[in-house]
């Protein structure tokens, strides 16, 4: 590196000051907001942007708001330019429209305000939170029953509702008249205004200290530095085109039960990354996505993989990256009247997994061991959620949106450790699970259990993280009702490097349960004692009514595995069996580990592992199964061949798909998961979902386990590869 022609220390001090600024905006938001959605699950975001609309600092809570902040601010910049109006301190816009202004879904409301220094407009501050309600047919912004965006509740393209730092009273009246919890929602908006004002005050202090010219210069320098580091990392990723496919589930309305295909194509070109998403035509349900959720979720997947060590998040990060979502009218680029109230969590979360999928394919082929170590199993990214509304035991009403199962989702296995239990969604950094006592104290519910789900973590040399399962009975009031939705019930997240997919999520009500009778008999209603009419319900339910005495069971899904499960040290499997984290049958079937009492049965384990390997390829393997040199990297590619990383067996020409040379075992996923005592929702309609386990014909190593529909012939492999450009 050459000698800098600026004060590097001052520039770094300035960067830390801007980071403190966005953190203090976040603190203000958390402290002044009462909503447990903010204080517990941390479903919010704050950031600062310049006049060009580039990020200067970003508080990492919900990551996908890099999208809503960029695009929402851009929409306001364009609007102001078009109107030719004058910006004034204390002006503020509300934004929640995915179609026109980059919002994630209507429930995530942004307040964006201009920043000034001595009269000069310097940029924008942004605060966003998931407000308790936005009206409409759904609750808390979720409307699985809506057929168009107009049914989904209040929709704000950028609207200037704030003047002189206060919400216009006319707008207050209007908003209050249209939401279920007017007091709470208006307080949420005030909290965001307070957060922005904190940002403005802090910015003035920073510029007072550094001077305006230095402030501007250091902002540019720090963006350049982040860009430079990311480009250096991208340069070590082999050039080429990487592709992946996933399916969004929609079984709502009156059917049919659909799987909506979407794809991504990542082109790695020198120090640039170009994502191109495509998908089937948009549908008349809340899963459709738009520019904001697509960009935000693509970057979320990218950030958790590539943002590590010394890489501050600012506008420099987005410069090497482009995200193309194709022609309008598809599920990845929908236009009105398409409903979008779960854009971020349906197609959006699939987009996040796709982004990480193609990156992991590419990183696995890098010469750089650090980059190879960044591959990971998929996170669950989808959760059984429900929002409810009804009277409570205190004589008031409860509006419920429990984040428990979202934050309780399992994390994907990493190269350095098993996936984290209750990791949450990829986007929910810092998320928390509210206590049961908080719920029972506020709402008419009695929890029967909250536990980790056995076998929920996808099998692998590193196991996926485990997920949360809970059940509550309605015990008071006059019943609760609202929408239910689960984005990941049928097509669970897949593993990497021969690791297996994780369990999916699910929910169901138990009608007319025996809970009241058990309680009358002073007996504890436990999972074993619970009885009643278990109802199979759709994963996207317009409205569920839960009567007093009904029980709602919601099970989050786990993270996916990394590496061949037969390579997992038996002692770790034994410990998991003793702890009850995996069942004995699961341990035997997928890990080949057998216990005698509470000890490892080494001989039986050896025999079982040998048998599993024979069964995998239908013959005695000719070569030994060895751990690959780089954990989780099951395939290597040279100029001519794709080969097995365990035994060097040549699988397919380098220009082809490695799957051609592998032994395939394809089973309907419900059947395979039943063998493994894992959870997935079986489809009753075509196409089926299958697991495709690919094994090395030489050593029987698990090379890759795909999750695909029976209609798709094969998943794509990396193509058009060139050697990485060394900078």
């Amino acid at each position, binding site marked *: 590196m050459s000698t800098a022609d600026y004060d*590097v220390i001052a520039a770094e001090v300035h960067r*830390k000051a801007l980071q403190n600024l966005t953190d203090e905006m976040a603190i203000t938001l958390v402290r002044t907001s009462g909503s447990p959605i903010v204080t517990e699950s941390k479903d919010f975001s704050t950031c600062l942007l310049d006049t060009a609309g580039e990020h200067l600092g970003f508080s990492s809570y919900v990551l996908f708001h890099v999208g809503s902040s960029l695009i929402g601010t851009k929409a306001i910049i364009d609007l102001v330019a078009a109107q030719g109006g004058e910006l004034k301190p204390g002006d503020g816009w509300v934004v929640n429209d995915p179609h026109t202004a980059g919002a994630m879904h209507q429930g995530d409301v942004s307040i964006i305000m201009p920043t000034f220094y001595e009269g000069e407009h310097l940029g924008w501050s942004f605060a966003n939170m998931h407000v308790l309600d936005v009206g409409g047919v759904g609750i808390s912004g979720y409307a699985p029953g809506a057929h168009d965006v107009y049914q989904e509740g209040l929709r704000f393209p950028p609207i200037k509702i704030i003047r002189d730092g206060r919400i216009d009273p006319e707008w207050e009246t209007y908003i209050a008249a249209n939401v279920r919890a007017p007091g709470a929602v208006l307080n949420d908006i005030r909290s965001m205004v307070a957060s922005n004002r904190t940002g403005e005050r802090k910015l003035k202090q920073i510029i007072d200290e550094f001077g305006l010219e230095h402030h501007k210069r250091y902002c540019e320098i720090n963006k350049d530095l982040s860009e430079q580091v990311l480009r250096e990392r991208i340069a070590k990723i082999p050039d080429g085109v990487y592709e992946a496919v996933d399916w969004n589930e929609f079984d709502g309305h009156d059917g049919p039960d659909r799987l909506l295909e979407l794809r991504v194509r990542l082109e790695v070109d020198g120090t640039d990354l170009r994502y191109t998403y495509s998908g089937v035509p948009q549908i008349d349900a809340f899963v459709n996505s738009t520019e904001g959720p697509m960009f935000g979720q693509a970057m979320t997947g990218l950030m958790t993989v590539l943002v*590590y060590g010394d890489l501050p998040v600012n506008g420099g990060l987005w410069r090497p990256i482009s995200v193309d979502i194709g022609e309008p009218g598809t599920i990845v680029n929908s236009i009105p009247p398409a409903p979008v109230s779960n854009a971020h969590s349906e197609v959006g979360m699939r987009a996040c997994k796709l982004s990480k999928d193609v990156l992991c394919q590419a990183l696995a082929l890098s010469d750089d061991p650090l980059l190879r170590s960044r591959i990971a199993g998929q996170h669950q990214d989808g959760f059984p959620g429900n929002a409810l509304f009804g009277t409570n035991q205190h004589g008031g009403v409860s509006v419920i949106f429990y984040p428990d199962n979202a934050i309780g989702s399992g994390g994907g296995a990493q190269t350095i450790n098993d996936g984290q239990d*209750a990791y949450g969604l990829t986007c929910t950094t810092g998320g928390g699970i509210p*206590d049961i006592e908080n719920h029972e104290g506020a709402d008419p519910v009695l929890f029967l259990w909250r536990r980790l789900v056995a076998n929920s973590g996808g099998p692998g040399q590193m196991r996926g993280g485990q997920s949360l399962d809970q059940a509550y009975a309605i015990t008071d009031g006059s019943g609760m009702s609202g929408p239910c939705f689960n984005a990941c019930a049928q097509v669970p997240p897949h593993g990497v490097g021969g690791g297996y997919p994780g369990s999916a999520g699910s929910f169901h009500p138990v009608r007319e349960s025996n809970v009241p009778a058990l*309680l009358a008999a*002073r007996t*504890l209603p436990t999972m074993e004692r619970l009885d009643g009419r278990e109802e199979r319900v759709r994963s996207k339910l317009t409205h569920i009514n839960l009567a007093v005495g009904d029980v709602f069971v919601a099970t989050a899904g786990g993270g996916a595995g990394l590496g061949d499960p037969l390579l997992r040290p038996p002692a770790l499997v034994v410990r998991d069996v003793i702890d009850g984290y995996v069942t004995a049958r699961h341990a035997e079937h997928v890990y080949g580990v057998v216990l005698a009492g509470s000890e490892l049965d080494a001989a039986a384990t050896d025999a079982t592992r040998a048998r599993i390997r024979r069964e995998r390829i239908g013959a005695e393997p000719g070569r030994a199964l060895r751990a690959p040199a780089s954990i989780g990297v099951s395939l290597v590619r040279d100029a001519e061949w794709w080969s097995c990383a365990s035994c060097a067996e040549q699988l397919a020409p380098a220009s082809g798909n490695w799957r051609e040379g592998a032994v395939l075992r394809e089973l309907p996923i419900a059947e395979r998961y039943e063998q493994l005592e894992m959870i997935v929702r079986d489809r009753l309609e075509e196409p089926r979902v299958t697991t495709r386990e690919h094994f090395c014909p030489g050593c029987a190593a698990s090379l890759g386990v795909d999750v695909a529909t029976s209609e798709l012939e094969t998943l794509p492999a990396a193509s058009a590869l060139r050697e990485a450009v060394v900078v």
Partner: protein
Amino acid sequence: MSNSVGNGNGTAPSAFIGVDVGGTHTDVSVVYDGRVERGKALTTYDDFSRGVLEAVGVAAGNYELGMEELLRRTQLFINGTTVVTNTITTLRGSRVGVLITSGFRDAFRLAGGPRTTEIDDHLQVNVPDLVQRRAIAEIDERVNWAGEVLVPLDVEQVKAQARYLVEEVGVDALAVCFLWSHANEAHELAAEAAIKEVYPDLFVTPSHRVFPVEGETRRWTTAILNSFVQDRAEVYLTSLNERLRSAGLGGGLAFFQGLGGGISLEKARQYPLGLLGSGPAGGALGANELAKRMGKRRVLLGDMGGTSFDTGIISDNEIHIDKNLQLGPFMTGVNIVDVISVGAGGGSIGWVSERGVPQVGPQSAGSTPGPAALGRGGEQPTVTDAMVTLGFIDPDNYLGGRVQLRPELARAALDGTFGERFGWSTEQAAAAIHDLVVVNMANAVREVSVGKGHDPRDFLFLAYGGTLPLFASQIAERLSIDTIVIPQNSSVFCALGLLSSDYVTRNDQGVNWDLSKPDGVERVNAIAARMVEEAIAQMESEGFARDQIDVQRSADLRFQGQAYELTLPMPARPLTADDASAIFDDFLAHYERTYGEGTAWKGVPASLINYSVTVTGRGERPQLGAVAAAGEAAGELVRETREVFLPAERRRERIPVIDDARFVVGARVEGPAIIDAVDTTIYVPPGTTAVRDEHMNYVLTR
């Protein structure tokens, strides 16, 4: 034996001893015979009490007394210890078993959501298992939100599960964790009694006893931590008590809590978790006592050691207490003096990050290899190396001349890391490290002040610890603080702080009173009356007379539906229904003061969530820092001059070095200057004036 305070045994013992067992050193401060003496020894990890007695022996020697003679003359011995903190950070504690409400045994892994705010997925790991999953046994029982029993406890099941945990799993302490036990403790108490029937000597922590507040994750985690640290704390407490008693200590023995006060041996045995974080709390207490003597009400305090910088805030002579301490990955209900720590110390390493940006810390060279200038193989430049290079640390007089530094190695390390890469002179590289460590510390001070709604300019900065006085002025300048106070005995300030501590216990109890329903007041009064009665009885059992006991009441309030509470003082009398609206008004005013005008929620009722009682037993305390009269400067203030590189001005200059012994009360020095004190070095930059006040503090003003 009584642990009463101030009970002489006929020989009129009058010494006070404060001992702070720190990570590296065990520090002792003694007040006896009208003066303060110090003792230091290395901390002895195999048996902490050995180092304690050694350090006491050193201090006794300064009075020309034997250790046993000093102990015989001791009225009160107050001990702060890292043993509990250390047990948790090393995760080497008791094998704990848990009895938990059926259905909820995974609460500790779920941990309220373990993911951090870091983006990097490699930093997301499970919360360490303080208890094995097989050591968590489920019990059929249930209490609801109103404290009503839905399903009675099956005592026989409790006994059977306790037997299973002890006999089959091999646990050596238990915690009882039931839902809503803060609203109705009957089941946890009955379970404890049933366990004691089978195992009378087994250590049991019922969760409501350590944190009777809504929110099971914190309450239960606090309970298992208390049982987790029990074994090692017990060994320490017993060993220290026996050694001190057999060495002749006849006076009181108190253990200092992170809450900022002492407790007796017996209470420490029941609630060893209270001993967490006592070291920094001692410093804060000492800072507050000093501030009171100086007539100052608002203090930001800082303490810099080899690896970290600790900072906290005192407002209106109240030390800020952090409720619900987040202890690494563990959510707890521990109340502790709010001191935050950042990785900025003398050993912090300067390095260049991937973006090509110079950084300092949080990695530290520690004592091995230590700073490059030590010549023990350290090749990375540290803060100490920078200060040697700038001329602020005298290489011939480091640690009182016990260690000879090699400045050429410091320079080589700086040049190697920064010089060529940035085209800097060695001094410029050193100044860069200096600036960065100052910024890191100033940011921490900003976090404890601005982050809690205070303007640092309204505070004075009290800087102690051996290293901080070199940096205190620049930290203060970054925060626009105009007064810095550096106390005498800076390096054993924490141990000295212990001497001003009273006995303190604090209890929080969830009450959940809806202020819009004033008729709920009687229930709150009943709870408050019981809490006060129990707390006073507890303090009386420690040997305090009623007139030595102070009771403070406070309450946590929030708007209904909120998750964060604000704390208000409560009157020392039963509340009436009429108080509900007055308390609500107070809360509104306090809320808007805290969060800004117009932020209070409109039309939403508030609830009084927790009621808290803090009881203080005040005993006789040593007279510290008698006011000294202005003296005549005995000779020339300036001992010598030294060439230093002024970091802010970026220029080399020869500046005076002030002889501490001659820097008497009332003396004054204009910067730039260095004051060489016994255990610290103070830098007075240009434009700053230093005076010695009547408490023997160095007071720097700009």
